[in-house]
């Protein structure tokens, strides 16, 4: 073990960084003064008519007389959304904005009705008749690659849209030398990110300039602008995209959706304002889905339970089309790249495939692939522990990486992390012996408790080289921040990143405050508007605090340097004797000081005083494109299983995590809480279910069940801080981490509870029905 891991936050004598200051975002939001896309009114409203069939040719679309109904024929010239990967046998397919001759999933937009009110548009949409020559639906990923399966897209036999393979040299020999091979067949079913605000778009045409302003609920406004301008063949500068307050995204709002393209097209065509708000049913059937993977993982262990080699077969059902910009390669390729997770194993053989089916397109969802990878890997570890008859913690102790930097079998560089330390912290806090005693007592009474662990690493804050390595045509990564101190001394930071609830305005303000010594209340962070914010990639992949935070720090340091110069002139002192604090520059050890406001005023109005040593004004930029880092955590779940009903209650949940330096502990904790709740939902409840015909049976929130306050136990948090060398703020990012651990921890706990019954569950969500089926089959068999 190497390096420094400190427990808890703080240190370094910092004034603003590391403090739980209240969020600057909140006063407006708690007073109902937030501005969400759906709050805007429009002259025209759109309702999409969606395919009731999963597959087939469109024979006719009949619109009621006098109604304005747009179909594919009307939008000729509008380009399909065609995401590209220049690697891995990728077969590009374009998604038409409106289904063109053929439908490929239930919910695909076939036509758009435009009317003066939402209700009218809805009424007309009900009268639009779509006649489809029904074809057999293919909804399961494994069925899609079976012999004789129908083809979803012409020229794609076998329905494999991307396929990647890797095998390290020497794998076969090591495999052959193993004492034991342990296997896990894991299944993560399809899920939906379910932000509380569904999607919405509002586009207005400005007849004076010919520009369109699109408000939409997105995580990446600049990329939306680029992509829509491409589809519509318009100058990008004629489109302004604004992400106002966004009611949660969780990845679902980081892909371009056809609806936003069409709404923009309509505003230009009608030279007016046009709006669409998605209803919950649409969100569940036609927004981006996630998680749908089959993973078979085998581990070869030596006689001491040391993992020697891993073999993986990863199959992701990525739906009918490929999502923009990340493509359908995202889930399977990320699983392939990050599979060995926190374990030391240098031999790896992996086949990863994405297949197309007649289901809704898959996009990102908080955690992307890692919930599935971690679930499989951690199930494998528990199975291996059983096979070797050792403690599940001991097998982890034998195999977790402890020497850093570490180069994985896939060539990823892991910077300093604390896999062992977080686990030991968690183990100590949960008190395993006490639990085992309680478990035994309960068992004697016919009650079933279980404990489950999950250790994992989360790749965070990675820049453009990481995306380029995937062969993506669009390689997001860097971020730019412009900081201006205005002539009144107030600070404005314009950022390319685009948060949607993470509190980034506050954390970035803390980073700036730390550098230039003005309080966060005097710092405004401006984002989400392509007219006022620099080009940037938005908020996803636990990147914003690391990358935008890094760019912020770079820009703030430049401002600081400039302020010191100005202060040097104004106070007639050496820069090295000056400190910036409390909104002032002070000469150390004297009572000479000048306010930032006075300095800013001089920077604009008295530039001659600085003898050409500084540029006029007080604006600086920072751009940052880091290599990427890894956060890590150990999650522990204690569950109570009702063997009669199959119901699982999570009684206790504990997280020991390490995200490097924490800028605002309160906000960091909130991110973990929210992630864990989603992860528990993923583990136990949430499932998009298709029937054989390709219809969705879970199209409302009573059937697709996000957890409520009842299902989420108090979440206990322990922080370790391993400062990152790969991130200039030393922060590692943690937006997704909370979601990654629970499927593994909870299902391992369920399996621990199931031990007396000699059955195991390797499917998420682990619903009562699935658990009861296992128990019933076991009863029958005995």
């Amino acid at each position, binding site marked *: 073990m190497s390096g420094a891991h400190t427990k808890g936050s703080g240190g370094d004598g910092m004034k603003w960084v590391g403090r739980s200051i*209240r*969020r600057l*975002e*909140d*006063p407006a*939001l*708690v*007073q*109902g*003064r*937030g501005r*969400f896309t*759906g*709050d805007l*009114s429009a002259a025209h409203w759109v309702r999409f008519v969606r395919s009731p069939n999963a597959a087939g040719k469109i024979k006719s679309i009949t619109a009621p007389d006098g109604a304005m109904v747009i179909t594919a024929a009307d939008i000729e010239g509008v380009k399909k959304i065609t995401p590209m990967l220049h690697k891995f046998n990728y077969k590009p397919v374009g998604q038409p904005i409106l289904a063109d001759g053929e439908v490929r999933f239930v919910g695909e937009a076939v036509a758009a009705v435009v009317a003066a009110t939402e*209700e*009218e548009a809805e*009424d007309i949409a009900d009268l639009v008749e779509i006649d489809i020559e029904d074809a057999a639906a293919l909804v399961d990923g494994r069925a899609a690659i079976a012999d004789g399966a129908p083809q979803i897209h012409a020229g794609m036999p076998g329905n494999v849209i991307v396929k990647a393979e890797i095998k390290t040299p020497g794998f076969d020999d090591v495999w052959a030398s193993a004492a034991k091979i342990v296997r896990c067949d894991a299944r993560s079913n399809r899920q939906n990110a*379910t*932000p*509380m*605000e*569904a999607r919405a778009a509002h586009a207005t045409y400005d007849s004076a300039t010919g520009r369109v302003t699109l408000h939409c609920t997105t995580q990446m406004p600049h990329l939306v602008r680029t992509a829509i301008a491409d589809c519509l063949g318009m100058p990008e500068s004629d489109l302004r995209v604004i992400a106002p*307050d*966004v*009611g*949660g995204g*969780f990845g679902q709002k980081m892909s371009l959706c056809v609806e936003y393209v069409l709404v923009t097209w309509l505003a230009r065509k009608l030279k007016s304002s046009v709006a669409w708000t998605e*209803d*919950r049913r649409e969100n569940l059937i036609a927004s981006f889905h996630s998680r749908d993977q089959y993973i078979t993982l085998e581990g070869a262990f030596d006689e001491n339970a040391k993992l020697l080699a891993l073999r993986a077969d990863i199959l992701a059902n990525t739906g009918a089309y490929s999502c923009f910009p990340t493509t359908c390669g995202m889930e399977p390729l990320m699983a392939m790249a990050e599979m060995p997770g926190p374990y030391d194993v240098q031999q790896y053989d992996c086949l990863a495939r994405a297949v197309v089916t007649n289901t809704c397109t898959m996009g990102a969802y908080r955690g992307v692939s890692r919930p599935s990878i971690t679930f499989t890997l951690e199930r494998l570890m528990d199975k291996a522990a059983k096979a070797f008859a050792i403690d599940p913690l001991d097998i982890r102790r034998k195999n977790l990486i402890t020497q850093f930097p570490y180069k994985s079998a896939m060539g990823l560089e892991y910077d300093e992390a604390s896999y062992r330390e977080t686990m030991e912290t968690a183990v100590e806090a949960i008190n395993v012996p006490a639990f085992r005693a309680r478990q035994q007592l309960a068992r004697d009474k016919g009650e079933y408790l279980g404990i489950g662990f999950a250790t994992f690493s989360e790749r965070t804050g990675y820049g453009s080289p990481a995306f380029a390595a995937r062969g993506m045509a669009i390689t997001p990564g860097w971020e730019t921040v412009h900081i201006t101190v205005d002539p009144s001394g107030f600070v404005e930071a314009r950022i390319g990143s685009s948060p*949607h*609830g*993470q*509190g980034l305005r506050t954390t970035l303000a803390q980073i700036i405050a730390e550098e230039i010594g003005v309080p966060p209340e005097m710092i405004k962070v401006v984002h989400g508007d392509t007219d006022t914010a620099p080009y940037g990639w938005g908020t996803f992949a636990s990147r914003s605090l690391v990358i935008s935070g890094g760019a912020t720090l770079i820009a703030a340091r430049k401002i600081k340097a400039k302020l010191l110069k100005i202060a040097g002139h104004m106070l007639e002192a050496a820069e090295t004797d000056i400190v910036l604090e409390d909104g002032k520059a002070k000469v150390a050890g004297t009572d000479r000081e000048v306010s930032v406001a006075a300095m800013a005023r001089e920077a604009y109005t008295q530039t001659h005083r600085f003898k050409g040593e500084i540029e006029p004004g007080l604006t600086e930029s920072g751009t940052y494109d880091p290599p990427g880092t890894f956060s890590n955590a150990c999650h522990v779940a204690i569950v109570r299983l009702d063997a009669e009903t199959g119901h699982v209650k999570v009684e206790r949940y504990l997280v020991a995590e390490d995200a490097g330096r924490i800028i605002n502990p*309160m*906000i960091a*904790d*909130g991110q*973990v*809480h*929210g*992630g*864990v*709740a*989603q992860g528990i939902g993923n583990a136990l409840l949430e499932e998009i279910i298709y029937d054989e015909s390709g219809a969705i049976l879970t199209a*409302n*929130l*009573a059937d697709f069940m*996000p957890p*409520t*306050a*009842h299902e*989420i136990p*108090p*979440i206990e948090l322990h922080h370790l801080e391993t400062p990152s060398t790969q991130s200039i703020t030393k922060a590692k990012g943690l937006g997704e981490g*909370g979601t990654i651990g629970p499927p593994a921890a909870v299902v391992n706990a369920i399996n621990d509870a199931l031990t007396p019954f000699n059955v195991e569950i390797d499917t998420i969500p682990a619903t009562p029905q699935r658990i009861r089926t296992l128990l019933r089959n076991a009863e029958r068999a005995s």
Partner: protein
Amino acid sequence: MSEKTDVTLTINGKDYAIAVEPRRTLADAIREDCGQTGTHIGCEHGVCGACTVIVDDAPVRSCLMFAVQAEGKAIRTVEGLADGDKLHPMQQAFMDNHGLQCGFCTPGFLMLAVGVLEREPNISDEALIDVLSSNLCRCTGYQNIIKSVRAAAQEMRK
């Protein structure tokens, strides 16, 4: 379907004379006809609670009520919670305890919690979780919402 009925909605003590179709939900009327967009819509089928407002002292889901049914009743929305510049203890508690992230569910939770605590100031912790489980939040994992409401309950009892 487009025959409109005149109704007067009393929202936060102010009357709004509007004409709506009988099928118009109270949520839509509050947001679109009265311009009070603080009340949010997350599902329109009564599950998420984002649209919760207080009608005659009881929290209700405004997506499950028609605007015409609210005639003559006192409606309170998030916009009316603060007393001028002074935030309601519940709003303050949500800010102090990080009870919100994206803030989309927040107006619904605030109105739910205020409505319940006004009727039952000494509500037990267990019953409180029961009540809060009627609204969905996708960001906070509920931890800090529960903490916020407990803190506000103490403050409101003072």
